[in-house]
Each structure stands twice: as structure tokens, then as C-alpha cells.
């Protein structure tokens, strides 16, 4: 009989190695999956993981996809540190995108440089407003924020659908559910000619830098860490639990909202129903693989972006369904959770006891 036995000492080294082990296991699992689907595993690996990186355009796409993940995961990590479980970044992302679009469309005649600034602010505020709902319900009625923030995702998705079918629809768009294309003044400047990589990427790096200072160096970040590790200790020290719920949700909402803004003002160039690629949920996996650490978020976002791009390649060249990237994401999370269990427990083979 296999049994899990708690370890006396959890290895610090393994805490950081376990995400890497999870990635390796995901790769092995993925190759086995290719084989099971009748594809050559090595060819599958090449198409999925190497193809997207073969040229500069591929690399720029990787950074482009990683940008929203970095932003969202950074924001979520602030709350997750204090066990504030914001699962609704997807909804906050959408609402940030909606609010930014509203500015872009309202000032569509303007060519002022302030339009973009306004859009960034609107994106952040839109995400924060959406995140404030579960925070408010939690602090006032002690509702479970996991449920409320998740349910608000679906409300956001329906709301954006209503908007692009109604109030924000492009009147000259032949009835397609999408807004007008934004003017150049409402689009993020591109960084590299011939690629779609835009100014959101340096914004994400800045967010990671600020997040690092907040989580690792600031007293508020310390308080959130204490609250996450030991709630009675936080109460003993007098760290206000409500403030942490608000900080966690508002940080998550603001960065998810900015990510949403970057999507409509970047690769999309307009508001549509499918402005998100499930970034809000993928970012949760990113945050955990990164151990809520900003440096880790950078690399985990790149990996997750690669899974997105590889999925597209696999669709094109291997004839696999688009859900393949979800399968890889799920596999990665599963392997990470499994590896994490083994940090604190060891597997022991025990013969069944007589009597």
C-alpha cells in the first residue's frame, strides 16, 4: 500500500525546483499525449515548443502573449500572499478593456496623446471597480470571495457581449458584434517594426518591478505575507484584515484591467466579445508556478505564452484541436500540485499490516 508520510523538514531547494520538475513532467506527459494521438512525439515537440521561437517575429509574439499574463499574475500575487483568493481576474480584465474602449470610442476624433493615458487609467479603474464588488461583499458580509469573484467573470462576459451587440457596436460594421476600430491615438505604440509587440510590455516589466518592491520590501507587503502565513499572528500584531482584502483585490483588479486595456489598444484595436484568451485564468496558474514571486512570474508567463503559441502551431501543423493548449496548461498545474505535495510528504511503500 502506498502512503503519504509528512516529512520532518520540507526542503527549501525543492520548493524552487518543484516548478521546474513540473515543467519537465508536463513535457513528458505532452510527448506521451502526442504519441497516443498517433503523432510523432519528437515532431510534436518541435512544432509545439520550438516552432514558435524560430524567428524574431515568433519571439515578439511570445512577449506579446506573456504581457497580459505578467500583469494579471503580478496583481493576483499581491492578494494571494494574504490568502485573498481573487479568481475573477478574467472578469476584471474584460471590464478594464471595456472601460478603456469607452474612452477610445468617446475621444475617437481626438489625436491627443492623453487619450492613451486616459485609457490606461480607465482600464485600471474598470478592473478595480469590478474587483471591488467581491472585496466589498467579503468585508461587509463575509461572503466567500472565490465564488463571488468567479461568478462576476460570467457577468462580465455577458456584459461585454451586450455592449458590442448594442451600445458600442460599430454602426458601419455590418452588424458584427464589435466596436469601431480605434484611431492611432488610442493604440499603444509598437516597439519593433513589423511585430505586434507594443508599449504594454515595458509597462508589465514596470509592474513586476513595483510588485517586487511591494511584496519583498514594503511593510504592507510584509503584513500581507503574515496574514497569509498565520492569521492569528496578523491579528495579534494588529494588521487590519479588511485593508488586506481591499489591497489584494484592488491590486489584482487594477493590473488585470490594465492588461485588458493593453489587449484592446494593442493586438485587437477594438472591443470584441473574444477580447480575452482566458488570460485571467491562465494567470492564476502562472502566479502559483512562480510561487507569487515577481521574478518567477516573468519566466512562468513566458512559459505559459509558449503554451498558447504552441497550441496554435499544433492546430496548424499537426491538425490537433485548439483545446490542446488548455490540456497543456492543465497538465502543468496538475504536475505542479503533485510536485508540491511531495515537498511536504514522502511516498512510502508499506506492506498492509496484519491484524
Amino acid at each position, binding site marked *: 500500500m502506498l502512503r503519504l508520510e509528512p516529512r520532518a523538514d520540507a526542503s527549501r531547494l525543492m520548493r524552487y525546483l518543484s516548478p521546474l520538475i513540473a515543467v519537465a513532467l508536463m513535457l513528458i506527459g505532452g510527448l506521451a499525449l502526442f504519441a497516443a494521438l498517433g503523432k510523432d512525439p519528437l515532431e510534436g515537440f518541435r512544432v509545439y515548443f520550438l516552432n514558435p521561437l524560430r524567428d524574431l517575429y515568433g519571439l515578439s509574439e511570445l512577449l506579446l502573449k506573456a504581457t497580459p499574463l505578467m500583469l494579471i499574475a503580478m496583481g493576483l500575487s499581491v492578494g494571494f500572499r494574504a490568502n485573498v483568493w481573487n479568481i475573477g481576474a478574467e472578469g476584471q480584465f474584460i471590464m478594464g478593456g471595456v472601460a478603456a474602449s469607452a474612452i477610445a470610442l468617446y475621444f475617437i476624433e481626438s489625436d491627443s496623446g492623453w487619450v492613451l493615458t486616459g485609457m490606461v487609467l480607465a482600464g485600471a479603474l474598470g478592473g478595480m471597480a469590478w474587483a471591488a464588488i467581491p472585496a466589498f461583499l467579503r468585508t461587509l458580509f463575509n461572503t466567500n470571495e472565490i465564488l463571488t469573484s468567479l461568478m462576476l467573470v460570467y457577468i462580465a462576459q455577458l456584459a461585454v457581449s451586450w455592449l458590442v451587440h448594442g451600445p458600442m457596436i460599430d454602426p458601419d460594421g455590418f452588424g458584427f458584434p464589435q466596436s469601431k476600430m480605434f484611431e492611432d491615438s488610442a493604440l499603444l505604440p509598437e516597439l519593433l517594426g513589423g511585430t505586434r509587440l507594443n508599449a504594454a510590455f515595458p509597462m508589465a516589466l514596470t509592474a513586476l518591478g513595483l510588485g517586487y518592491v511591494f511584496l519583498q*520590501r514594503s511593510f*504592507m507587503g510584509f503584513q500581507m505575507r503574515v496574514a497569509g502565513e498565520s492569521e492569528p*499572528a496578523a491579528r*495579534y*500584531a494588529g494588521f487590519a484584515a479588511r485593508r488586506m482584502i481591499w489591497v489584494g483585490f484592488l491590486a489584482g483588479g487594477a493590473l488585470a484591467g490594465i492588461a485588458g486595456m493593453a489587449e484592446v489598444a494593442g493586438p485587437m484595436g477594438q472591443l470584441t466579445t473574444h477580447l480575452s484568451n482566458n488570460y485571467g485564468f491562465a494567470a492564476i496558474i502562472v502566479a502559483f508556478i512562480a510561487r507569487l514571486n515577481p521574478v518567477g512570474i516573468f519566466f512562468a508567463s513566458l512559459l505559459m505564452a509558449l503554451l498558447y503559441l504552441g497550441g496554435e502551431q499544433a492546430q496548424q501543423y499537426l491538425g490537433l484541436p485548439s483545446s490542446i493548449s488548455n490540456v497543456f496548461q492543465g497538465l502543468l498545474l496538475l504536475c505542479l500540485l503533485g510536485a508540491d505535495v511531495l515537498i511536504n510528504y514522502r511516498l512510502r511503500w508499506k506492506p498492509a499490516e496484519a491484524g
Partner: protein
Amino acid sequence: MNDAPTARLELRGITKTYPSVVANDRVSLKVMPGEIHAVLGENGAGKSTLMKVIYGVTHPGAGEILWEGERVRIRNPAHARALGIGMVFQHFSLFETLTVVENVALALELSGDLGLLARQIEQVSEKYGLPVDPRRRVHALSVGERQRVEIIRCLLQKPKLLIMDEPTSVLTPGAVQKLFETLRQLAAEGCSILYISHKLDEIQQLCHVATVLRDGRVTGECVPANETPESMARLMIGKALPVPELRPHSPGAPRLQVAGLSRDSDDPFGVELQDIHLDVRAGEIVGIAGVSGNGQKELLLALSGEEPLAERYPIRIDGVEAGRMGPRARRRLGLGFVPEERLGRGAVPSLSLAFNGLLTAHGQGLLRHGLIRFAAMRAFARRCIERFDVRCGGAEAAARSLSGGNLQKFIMGREILQSPGVLIVAQPTWGVDVGAAAFIRQQLIDLAASGTAILVISEELEELFEICDRLMVIAGGRLSPSRRVSETSIEEIGLWMSGLWPGADGQATVERADAAS
């Protein structure tokens, strides 16, 4: 087989090594049937490890165990229980959300009639003077009550060997005597008892034989009745027991004032605080004695600010009305607080000592513009480690890697280094070895001499008598008048602990009536 009686339990050369330390080094001992055998040693001497080996929680690296003359390998606690070994742990293993009777049923792997089991529990609790309501949920029980559940749970199994790990720390003097009667009665019935303690007077009173451990090795075996506390202390800590040095002082102005503090408990089994009045003056140490579960927890939450009051007036710190303030605001007024639970409340287990210093001492110049000054933070922790003789792996050591006594020294040091005007300490030396306990008491005395008002809530009467100027008793959520230590006695305070002090309305609950007996 020879004629000599067979030992109930014999250990030969038990060695247990952990990655960083040797917890037991060739430990041998022999427990005869009906013998009360003390295992004496400081915290960290290897007593608990040895007991875990006997109870099958861990397995020795070397050495053998003989149970009634036969070599055994004790696989796990269930196996130990099947052999007839019962253990009352120092750290309780109860499920908080279940009732007492459900916990007992789970531990004994019983199913079926809980009502019958509840009656058995009541019988045992009555017979052995361990009052507890079988239908209450464990989360609502105090530390003392939880321990009673553990003891009852063991006794229900009619063990042949009962291991008791520091069982008396939460009992009144009367209840301790009653427990001793129980243990003697059990021994007379043929049950062997392994009694783990660092309290020399208890061991002298109760135990037939004592095995003394130091640093994982047996340093002596003695008959406690033939020894003096000094000679046993020397075996245990390798030197004579330090005696606290009292400093003459005269109390100054009141620094902590509590006037008319009443509060209902949110918890249906909690204790309602009723019209508490107390003053602690500068330079004074005031003690509150009482059996645990009589309102200490509630009073401490109200005083620390973890659960602020609805009104301002009942609590004043240096004259400022602080009733509605949270812990941080009260700290800014000069309040220091050392809680009973060190790991998980007084300190965050996974964080380093440096960060645990920051937990409450952030006002000591450890911050700038909301950012942590790491160098200052580490320096503070190092100062605390050095001045309070905390044995640890340095400021970066995780709080959970420290022994209970060393963590308590660190927490105490963290609060004292902030030069509090008022210091509230709960159970200053609970589970702390004698050497560290003496050190902590001396620190409290020295701090009072510097003008701090100190309130100590403790269940150890000897300790309160040793360091306090005045004593009060809490019982059933009411606070007795205060008595100067020089004008009272352990007997009088012990009686008061049952709620019977002059002017008390004398309505005694079951628990209080029993504590008096």
C-alpha cells in the same frame, strides 16, 4: 526465567537521531508494574522524543524495547494502545470541530452509542476529578479543559502504562493534588506511570523513581524522596538553580487601568467578563491566577486589542482611553503583549526571527517611507537574540526551528526591547525549561524595576508568588480583589481560584466547585 519480577517496560540503548541533532543517545530505563517513574529533564533534553518512541510515533535508530519481558517493535500508536500503553500529550491531538465525546469515540475507534460513552466519560471525570462536559465542542474548551479530555481519553482505555507529558501545568493546586491521588490509585491498581516533568517538587511528591535526561543522555537515576530539589536540578541542568533577585522599588502612578470592563462572549461556551476592575502601577508586577477557561482568554483579547471593546473608557493606558483601539494603536501608547500561543500567534512559524521581530517592533525605526529597513531589522533581531540568550541559528533562522523556551525568550525580548510602559504577559514560562524560566522571570523583575507596569496571567502559582507584588484571581469571568503577595498564601489563592473570595456572590459552577475540592 528468574525470580525477579519482570519489568513492565524496559528500554535498552535507545538512540534516535534527527538530521540535525541526536535526540536520544543510548537511553536505558526500566519501569516496574505499579511504579510511578519520573523522566526529568529540561526542554530539548529528549524526553518527548523518548516518549514518542515508546508510543510508536517514531522509531528508534538503535536499541531495543522490552514490553513485559518480550522484545517488541512498536509500530504505531494504535499498536502501542493495543499493548496497553496510553499517552497524554503535551500538545493536544483533538479535533476542534467535534465534541468531547466524538473525539473520544474517534480516538478509541468506537462507534455506536455516544450517549453511553458520554456517561462513561462523566463517570471517569467524576472519579478522577477532571470535570468536563462531554457534549461541548473542543474549540470552545480552554487549554486546561482540553488536557482533561486527553487524560480521560487515556483512562477510558484502562492502560497498563500511562505516559503523562507535563500534565499539571494547567491545574489548580487542589486539582494537582487530586490528580496525584488518581495517579497513586492507578499505580496501586498495578498501572505503571511514566511521568514527564521539569517540576522538581511534583516529582518529589509523586514519583518512586526518577531517570534524569540531559542533552539526550541519561545523567542519573535517583529516588526523588532521597534527593533535594537542588541535587536533582544539578543532575538536570548541570548546575544549581538560579534564584530570582528581587529589587526593592516603590510603585508609581497607575499605567494600566481597567474599570468596569464587561463583555459577553461571542462564543456560546466562552466566558462572559463581568465588571473587571484592576490597576497596575509603574514598577509593579501584578499577577492574575486562575484555572484556565475562567475568562483569561477573553480578558487578554480585550486588553491586547485583538478584540477591541465597543467603548473607550474601560481600558486606559497611561491615562489614555484605549478601549476601542486595535493592537497597533495600543502599542503606540506603549503596550507590549506576549500571548500564550507562541508559534502561530506570537510568531509566524515559517518566517525568520528577523521578520518576526518586525511583527511588533516595526515602530523601532525599522521602517522608512513604508519600506522595510532590512539592516535595522536584522540588527534588532540580533540584539534580541544576544541580550536574551536565544539559542538559535541566527536572525535568519525560522521561528519554528526554535525550541519553545528559546522562542519565548525571543518574543519576550522583542517586547521588552521596545521599552513598553505596560507589559501584559500570558503564561510566561509555560513549557519552558527551568533555566530559561528563571531567566525570563528575572527579565520581568528587572523590567518592572525600570518603571514598567507588568500584568502576568499565569496558571503556575509558584511563579506568580515568586515574581509578583500583588495577586488577583479570575474565576467565572470575575476578578477578585488584589492581595499583596506578602499578605496571602498559596492556600488562600487556591481557594479563591474556585470563585470563593470575600464579597464574591458565591455562585459556584461545577467547574469552580471542583477546583476547590
